[in-house]
């Protein structure tokens, strides 16, 4: 048993006399992370035609969905698919493996019940992969494919959330960080947008949906920024990767007959807020929340279900109720019992087999005897038949001989009389 010190040693804040050098630790961490590279998985969910692909292209300034990629008009499918595409982005020496998970077909059918099920299955399967990787003996490489953030696109109706939106967010808010966005926000005037956002936040609170919350930061100035972001939720975004010239300036935006809606203009839409939040400031926080909250939820639920069943020696590592040693002891005992049971079973099976074989042999023996009897009887019958035939034959032979003798006798008699006649004739 490991002895732990009973009294906690209080830590005293000290001032240093000279320069020690552990202020360099953040740099070391930084250098190591840069070498390792970062991973981020982003999921986009929404009905087709809400501009998801365009927004992804605009966010990461790459054509992940190029013009040749078959658009939704070509791929209306009957069931919801979950597709993932990986892209490696490098910027300033930092390498990011970005995985975008798309859900074509979501909410497009006439009957959309359970269209969220494939999405939930996907998220759970990624968590399970990570759980298995974590529990392995050799943990050298643990690729993190868990979904870190889910952007949910709300259609800009201007009225409120649809039943489908509410259902989906309710089911996914404790599995993944959900960030709701108002898609195609250039449809709404500023007043309509404001009303719409208020309505959505009211409905979200009504239904107790837990969307991703920005953490409060210690410093004051960052806090102001965070508060501003919170007021703007849900973010109204417009996406575009097309560069247009406006007043001599090159901007990315959408060209209408009545003006140009600029994507990166804070007054036109909240795209810059989303980009800063998602990539520049809160990416690490999203990953942390996924790891500490959502993944832990999943893990405890999964493992609790397993212990209730009792026997599962493949995944149980740390139990919630027992200490590891006792657990191992119990496991050993269980194992031994299992072996004994198996042995007994084998014996039983063996016995049964032996009995069966014996029975079979007996049966075949009896069969052989029977056949032997039958053959003997057959032979006897044949013998009798032959005897009968022989007797008949003998009788016939005797008859025939008798007849021959009679004939002979007659012949003899006939020749005797002829001789007598001849003698008589000669006398004359």
């Amino acid at each position, binding site marked *: 048993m490991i002895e732990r010190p009973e009294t906690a040693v209080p830590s005293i804040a000290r001032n240093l006399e000279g320069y020690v050098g552990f202020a360099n630790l953040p740099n070391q961490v930084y250098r190591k992370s840069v070498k390792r590279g970062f991973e981020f998985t982003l999921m986009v969910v929404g009905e087709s035609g809400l501009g998801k692909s365009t927004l992804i292209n605009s966010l990461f300034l790459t054509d992940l969905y190029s013009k040749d990629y078959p658009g*939704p008009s070509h791929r209306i499918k009957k069931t919801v698919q979950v597709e993932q595409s990986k892209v490696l982005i490098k910027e300033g020496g930092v390498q990011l493996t970005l995985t975008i998970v798309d859900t074509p077909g979501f909410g497009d059918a006439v009957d959309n019940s359970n269209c969220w099920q494939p999405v939930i299955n996907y998220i759970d399967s990624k968590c399970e992969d990570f759980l298995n990787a974590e529990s392995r003996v050799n943990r050298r490489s643990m690729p993190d494919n868990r979904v870190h953030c889910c952007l949910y696109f709300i259609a800009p109706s201007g009225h409120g959330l649809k039943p489908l939106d509410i259902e989906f967010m309710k089911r996914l808010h404790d599995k993944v960080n959900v960030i709701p966005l108002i898609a195609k926000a250039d449809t709404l005037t500023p007043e309509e947008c404001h009303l719409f956002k208020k309505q959505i936040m009211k409905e979200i609170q009504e239904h107790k949906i837990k969307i991703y919350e920005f953490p409060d930061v210690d410093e004051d100035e960052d806090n102001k920024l965070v508060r501003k972001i919170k007021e703007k939720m849900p973010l109204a975004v417009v996406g575009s990767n097309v560069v247009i010239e406006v007043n001599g300036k090159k901007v990315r935006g959408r060209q209408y007959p009545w003006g140009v*809606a600029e994507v990166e203009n804070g007054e036109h839409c909240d795209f810059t807020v989303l980009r800063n939040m998602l990539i520049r400031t809160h990416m690490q926080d999203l990953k942390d929340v996924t790891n500490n909250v959502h993944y832990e939820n999943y893990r405890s639920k999964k493992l609790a279900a397993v212990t209730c069943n009792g026997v599962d020696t493949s995944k149980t590592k740390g139990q919630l109720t027992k200490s590891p040693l006792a657990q191992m002891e119990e496991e050993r005992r269980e194992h031994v019992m299992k072996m004994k049971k198996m042995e007994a079973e084998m014996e039983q099976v063996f016995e049964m087999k032996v009995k069966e074989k014996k029975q079979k042999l007996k049966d075949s023996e009896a069969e052989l005897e029977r056949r032997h009897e039958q053959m003997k009887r057959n032979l006897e019958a044949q013998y009798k038949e032959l005897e009968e035939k022989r007797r008949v034959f003998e009788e016939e032979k005797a008859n025939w001989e008798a007849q021959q003798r009679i004939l002979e006798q007659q012949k003899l008699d006939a020749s005797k009389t002829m001789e007598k006649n001849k003698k008589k004739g000669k006398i004359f």
Partner: protein
Amino acid sequence: MSEAVVPDAMVSPAVGGLYGEKAGGPMLDFSYVGIDAILEQMRRKAMKQGFELNIMVVGQSGLGKSTLMNTLFKSKVSRKSVLATAQEKIPKTVEIKSISHDIEEKGVRMKLTVIDTPGFGDQINNENCWQPIMKFINDQYEAYLQEEININRKKRIPDSRVHCCIYFIPPTGHCLRPLDVEFMRRLSKVVNIVPVIAKADTLTLEERDFFKKKIREELRANGIDVYPQKEFDEDAEDRMINEKIREMIPFAVVGSDQEYQVNGRRLLGRKTKWGTIEVENIAHCEFAYLRDLLIRTHMQNIKDITSSIHYEMYRVRRLNENNTMVAHANGIPEHHLTAHEM
């Protein structure tokens, strides 16, 4: 050639001059019969009677149906303006709500009924959401039929049949959704459907053209005949006009009932930070075309097609049903009854 005594009041001055000069007063025109004066008589009668128009709007909630109705008739005719409900809850099943208004312009009175269908396409499971709507349309035909076959008929049968159904397509920019295709397929056979792209200020001009092309292709591929239907074109002139219209459907519309100052004029529009969208400017959106089609040029045609074709089809089907029922009841074998498919 015959001499006709034309009463003073009915001479149309434009015609009198065409038929050569006659001696004497302006009334006596020997070759003028006056049949064309019937137009004036009809006009007067129509003005006294007034017109009826029943429009149904169908589409998901939030597509701007009520706003468009208000814009079309330049007054607050939609359901939302009339019933001031505090909270807009999406109903669980499709409801049919109709509001009637009497509006007047230059002495012409019109009874406009707007039939709204809240709850269409809003649920998670939208199977059969078109059924209440079809039932409503057929009920209106049924009511008219009952009135018509009555022994003591009213002088003017109140016409509650749906003349035109405006279907709002959400501006996804890609293609029609399965729900849209299903609905239009079923309803184009019983009522005139006019599809429009709602909230068209979301699409740039190229996206709009692409979207329209895709929609037209899909409508053709699925055999959906929207108004103006090809088969009901009467002559070459009609066909020419209608072809032009058919090239442009579905109309990309933007609705607004708020006025803004643009270049010194007050116009209906939507004001955003990057510009103001003028509703009646054809460079911006096609609302003007839709309004012209529905009201200024084709209104009577729409009503005619409804009463002479859709209603007649319904009537034939219904009366044949009656015949089969009677035949079955009497044990008479039916010979040959044309059955119309739904």
